[in-house]
């Protein structure tokens, strides 16, 4: 009675699959377009000639393609310098936040310091502050310390802002590592630092890469601090440089170069993320599988 006629099954299943497939691909296409449309718009704009950018009705897909905006970017502005500045500040603050965060995370996870819970709560509370609220205080400090127009004025805040995330992520990662492993290392004769560097960190690479990339992206894209603390042209970072691109007159907005600057500024991040993609996915799904 409960047996389903097999012929019926065979005829319905492919049709049903076909339907769900269309639905699935439709959904995927929608999400991709929804997310990438603004980016695509910038990409297209960066290749349009000026007339096409200003044309009414809007020209979506340009017939004429030019690289002038890019050339202009590097000729009229020290854009290589901006890229270098951004890269330097981002790499150094990422390195600092990992180098300081990893030992701190390990200490919180395993050495169980006195008041560890309070410290952890404090770290968590720091992440709740909107960064912008710290801005005036930071400005004051930087003036007092005469750090204006110094890379340190960016590196220190970036490191500090990203430390809580680094510590929290790495700490939970360290806690998942089997404790026997550390005991084995200690019996083998490793001291705490050797153990951290030679045994634990190599196993933590996915988490290091994940937090490292997040820190890097933050530092690369940060605008307000970079705008305020740095005024010298040759020390500006990409976001500030791109925002300050001016036209021939105050009334002209140079959409083309801005779009080009946006693309140039984003490209390194895209390359970086694609390069480390597999590691990130491992890091985000850490703990799903027993180490």
């Amino acid at each position: 009675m409960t047996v389903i006629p097999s012929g019926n099954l065979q005829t319905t299943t492919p049709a049903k699959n076909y339907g769900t497939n269309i639905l699935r691909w439709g959904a995927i296409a929608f999400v991709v377009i929804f997310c990438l449309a603004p980016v695509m718009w910038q990409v297209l704009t960066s290749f349009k000639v000026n007339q096409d950018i200003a044309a009414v009705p809007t020209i979506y897909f340009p017939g004429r393609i030019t690289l002038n905006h890019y050339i202009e970017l590097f000729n009229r502005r020290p854009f290589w310098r901006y890229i270098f500045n951004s890269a330097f500040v981002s790499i150094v603050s990422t390195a600092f936040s990992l180098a300081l965060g990893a030992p701190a995370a390990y200490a919180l996870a395993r050495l169980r310091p006195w008041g560890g819970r309070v410290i952890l709560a404090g770290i968590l509370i720091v992440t709740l502050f909107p960064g912008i609220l710290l801005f005036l205080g930071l400005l004051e400090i930087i003036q007092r310390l005469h750090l204006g127009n110094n890379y340190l004025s960016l590196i220190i805040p970036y490191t500090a802002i990203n430390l809580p995330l680094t510590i929290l992520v790495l700490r939970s990662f360290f806690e998942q590592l089997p404790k026997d492993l550390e005991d084995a290392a200690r019996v083998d004769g490793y001291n705490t630092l050797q153990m951290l560097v030679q045994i634990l960190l190599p196993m933590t690479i996915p988490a290091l890469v994940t937090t490292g990339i997040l820190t890097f992206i933050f530092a690369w894209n940060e605008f307000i601090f970079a705008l305020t603390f740095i005024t010298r042209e040759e020390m500006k970072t990409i976001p500030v440089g791109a925002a300050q691109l001016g036209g021939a007159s105050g009334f002209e907005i140079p959409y083309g170069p801005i779009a080009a600057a946006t693309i140039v500024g984003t490209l390194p991040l895209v390359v970086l993320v694609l390069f480390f993609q597999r590691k990130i996915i491992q890091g985000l799904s850490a703990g799903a599988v027993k180490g």
Partner: protein
Amino acid sequence: MAKLELKNLNKTYTPKVIPVKDISLTVDDNQFLSLLGPSGCGKSTTLRMIAGLEEPTHGRILLGNEDITFKRPGDRNMAMVFQSYALYPHMTVYENLASGLKLKKTPHAEIQHRVKEVSQLLGLEDLLHRKPGQLSGGQRQRVAVGRALVRRAQVYLLDEPLSNLDALLRERVRADIKQIFATQKVPVVYVTHDQTEAMTLSTKVAVLNNGYVQQLDSPARIYNHPANLFVAGFVGSPQMNLLTLPCQTNYAVLGDSKIPLPDFPTVPPQIVLGIRPENVRIAQPEDQQTIRGQVYLVENLGMHNLVSVRVTGSDAAPLSVRALLPPDQSWSDEEITLALPPQNVHWFDVHSGDALHSTHSYPAS
């Protein structure tokens, strides 16, 4: 080379959590000591204190004549095999074996030589370039043992190294471990909750419970002369029959039967009788000390039948005795007569649990 000595070791975490209360032991060269006990008896904590992974609250640990109580684990020249193997997952088998030696700045040629020697012994030669993730459980276990052996340590510590293997492999590795560590000629301390492992591997067994050593003896003496009720009940499978019986003059009353007591200095009002199921047999006409009862459960263990018998005449407080009988023997379920050979009967004090000895027999060491 050196003997390992624990003196009044105590580990107190909080006033209520005291896993190790007072443990004193010595392990000589060539001795294989098992710490045997149920979970939570303090055996692992004791081992971790020997390794230096935990600091004792009181007491001393001596190696040779040197006090190593507060030495760092890496400076003790002890090697340890962990229950979870704890191999370094990002290193190859070779690197895993060599890491401890590299840290001690052993010359490269020496490292290669020792790794080669150990990997030959354990059959790891073809696996040296694999990572632990590519090994089977048994192979990982061998690497873990190998990592200890290359160290040529003064003491080997093993923390339940077989408990993650399947039953068949466990038996084989157990035999291997016995052979390998017999050639090392140094003290070996082995932690286990598995009495078979403790009995088969060790030259000496320390039965632990509740943070104290209950008995420290050779496996045979632990089995044949348990020092107290805990040891009697913990060692041996199926478990020893332990019956609390009232005493009359110089008899213990078991149902309808009277079991004569050996000549104790004083006869207590109650006493615990212990006899292993494998020592209980169906009574022959010449047997003196017998009990009668009804069979209520038969468990077939393959080479034996484990028969549970309710003793006749114990209706007020039903007593049951389990007997391990050969499978070819037959009996009547309604009425069975069992013999309790006097030489196999153990007596224990009801209150202290200590074994009672007649004035004639020599006391257990």
